[in-house]
């Protein structure tokens, strides 16, 4: 199951106006081209483009964005250039990066008494 398509709003830009940014470049997110600037993190690039669902969870199939923004909570995980589970808030965006939103791994057998699965 892929993350919700509707979350990507073309033309949307949550960047603050009037701030001079670093050089612009292109990255792809699930195959679609998105603009990033030098100094922005992968999270920043995605969030600025209105992409808020970074992954879908394994057990309850829920969308996740980011929570702590400082590398502690591991909520904002995306696949970057083939590396899975990268914290978008800690990873600087670079030209040509291939970003894929991820469907989490793992299965969850019935829980209860002693289920250490």
């Amino acid at each position, binding site marked *: 199951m892929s993350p919700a398509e509707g979350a990507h709003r073309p033309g949307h830009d*949550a960047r603050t106006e009037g701030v001079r940014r670093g050089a612009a470049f292109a990255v792809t997110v699930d195959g679609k081209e998105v603009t990033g600037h030098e100094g922005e993190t992968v999270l920043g690039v995605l969030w600025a483009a209105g992409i808020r669902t970074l992954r879908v969870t394994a057990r309850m199939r829920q969308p996740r964005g980011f*929570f702590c923004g400082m590398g502690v909570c591991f909520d904002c995980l995306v696949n970057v250039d083939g590396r899975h589970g990268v914290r978008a808030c800690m990873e600087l965006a670079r030209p040509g990066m291939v970003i894929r939103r991820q469907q989490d791994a793992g299965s969850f057998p019935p829980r209860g008494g002693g289920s*250490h699965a």
Partner: protein
Amino acid sequence: MLETEIAIIGAGPAGMAAALAAAESGVAATVCDEYPRPGGQFFKRAGGSFGLGPAHLGREHEHGERLRRALTEDRIRVLSDTLVWGAFGEKVLMLYREGRSEALRARAIVIATGAYDRPVPFPGWTLPGVLSAGGAQTLAKTQWIKPGARMLLTGAGPFVLPVADSLLRAGVEIVAIVEATRPREWWRHAAALWGQWPRFAEASAYRRMLRAARVPVLFGHKIVRAEGEETVTGAVVAAVDKSWRARPGTERRFAVDAIATGFGFLPNTELPDSMGCTLRWDAHGQAWFAAVDDMMATSQAGIYAAGEITGIGGSVVALDEGRIAGLSAAEHIGALDPARAAQLRAPVQASRKHLQGFADMLNVLFAPRPGLWQGLIGDTLACRCEEVTAAEVRACVREGCSTPKEVKDWTRAGMGLCQGRICRSLVVQAIAEERRIAPGQVPRSSVRPPIKPVPMGALAMSEMP
């Protein structure tokens, strides 16, 4: 293997101050920091490629720049993008940097690993767009990207003010600031305000900022629910009683696309814990902090702790504690004689005591109250990584689990990538409630390396200390 006189873990205010104190004492210090640039959370700033004018920069910016410039002095080596994944033997730190696992041996260590926002659960808290206050501020302050176009801030205590400041500068419309306490509760602590005039000035400046931006402030309210499907579209708040329990029939809904929650901080005490340093429970902070004496010494010889991990005190206290720790570490390795060290420490210790007094008052006034945990029930997740609900945690405690380790073994809560940082305090709270004991009485789990997850290939090729 890298060698250094004093290893400092964390390059926030406390870590930077420790490094400067060490350098002043003629000692070589190595600062290890997980982030790409020194500054920690308080002094975080946008990278060099951003061109920012005065309208964009907050009051602490200059101070942060001064500290960062000072760190470039010769005796200080800053290792950024560097994770300390474990501490072993005689002051050996294992680092993960540039894809490799390397050893750093030190004669003294200052741990200044800071804190992170306290997770507070409520229905919908995992929706994209529901953020911690720190997370919202970081995005706005370091990348000038709005966490939301219309945001609601909910929390307790003054941290929400600098967050609101960052958000407003970034162009966010704040529909409301929702504060759990009421002003009339503050006056009981008026005595602690004496002599803290800079704090008054700060508070007044923030109030002016809020008024100018016409941001409504709702006292005596808290978030009870976030609504939305793929992303948050609404924040429902309710009035609360003195225990922060929601009053029925007082719900109000705000249309928002992001919510930031700011209910205090939890210290990153994994490293001192793993090094055998004694931790102390703070009932107001509802957390275990590194226990230190007035020289910032932990219970382990040659290991010092400074900043938020000894107690939540904000950046001003952290700067003092870092300086004290740096001086004490220099004394420990013989670079400063005890009399000189004591002389240098004395004014900083006095300053710290004064500033900590104010911080302590804030910690008491804005301490979490029982109603804050009303959302820790039913299908609301306690463990976000492993998707364990509050109901599952409580059921397991009712069936006999009395420790976080047992809850972890039964439900997987705490086994995810965040290694329990988000759910630990929630599991402890659930255990405390179900077993009718104080959270401080719930046994702690052991901390194990790696302190944060590290790729196995790097560990397989690890340098041996």
